[in-house]
């Protein structure tokens, strides 16, 4: 009884079956950034929350000491950018899956992209302009 649904010969090709390789690059980026983030984020959490008293030793002076080193500046900058793009891309997928109306999907993504631009810009600005003698 079950019948195969096949296109008739010479029927026009369905449009929009291919929309470029964007989703492939997105998939690949999640894996490459994921490997880097495993090291960057777990390292960050270990230093900040577990090692040597954890969160209790963090204050302005502690941040000043770390950002005196270009190594940790670069670490935090890379972590900021990769985590925002990795997480933003993940939320983009979640919005695509659960938003039912096109308008809802559109505005949730506008909100998402705006928050990504805000957080990446602000974080980058703070890392590059940090002043340990801000009160002087």
């Amino acid at each position, binding site marked *: 009884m*079950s*019948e*195969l*649904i096949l296109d008739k010969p010479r029927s026009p090709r*369905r449009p929009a079956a291919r929309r470029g390789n964007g*989703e492939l690059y997105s998939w690949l980026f999640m*894996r490459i950034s*994921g*490997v880097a*983030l*495993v090291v960057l*984020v*777990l390292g960050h*959490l270990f230093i900040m*929350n*577990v*090692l040597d*008293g*954890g*969160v*209790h030793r*963090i*204050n*302005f*002076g502690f*941040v000043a000491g770390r950002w005196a080193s270009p190594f940790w500046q670069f670490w935090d900058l890379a972590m*900021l950018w990769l*985590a*925002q793009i990795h*997480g*933003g891309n*993940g*939320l983009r*997928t*979640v919005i*695509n*899956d659960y*938003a039912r109306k*096109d308008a809802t*999907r559109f505005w949730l993504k506008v909100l998402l992209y705006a*928050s990504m631009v805000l*957080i990446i810009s*602000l*974080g980058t*600005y*703070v890392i590059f*302009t*940090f*002043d340990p003698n*801000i*009160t002087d």
Partner: protein
Amino acid sequence: MAGTTATERSGTSRGGGTLYRGDLGMWSWVAHRITGVLTFFFLFAHVLDTALVRVSPDAYDKVIETYKNPIVNLFEVGLVGAVLYHALNGIRVMLVDFWAKGPKYQRQMLWAILAVWVLVMIPGTYFMLVRTVSDMFGGH
């Protein structure tokens, strides 16, 4: 019902939706989503609070004090647990994708990462809470 499958595949999927139903693998995927979304929202707040170092040392120290509150300290253990699961399961996902035998062992790998999670979280939780607990009961 070959017809049903064909209709669904050519049907009305919008925006690249990727919902699927499975068993244990589905739950690992659900947990991956939840931990990922939670971490992304935390990151939003965390960059804002760290940005206070550009305002004044006092403003930054005040907001960091909230991280040292016992209740918030417990949430930090939850955050670390969520991120650790996301990282370990992410490695598992990559092994499923890129390792020839990954799909065959995906279930065993889930149990393996859960075992690693427990083994890391036991000492991790201890070191994250020990100072808070000793501050609450007795000396400084």
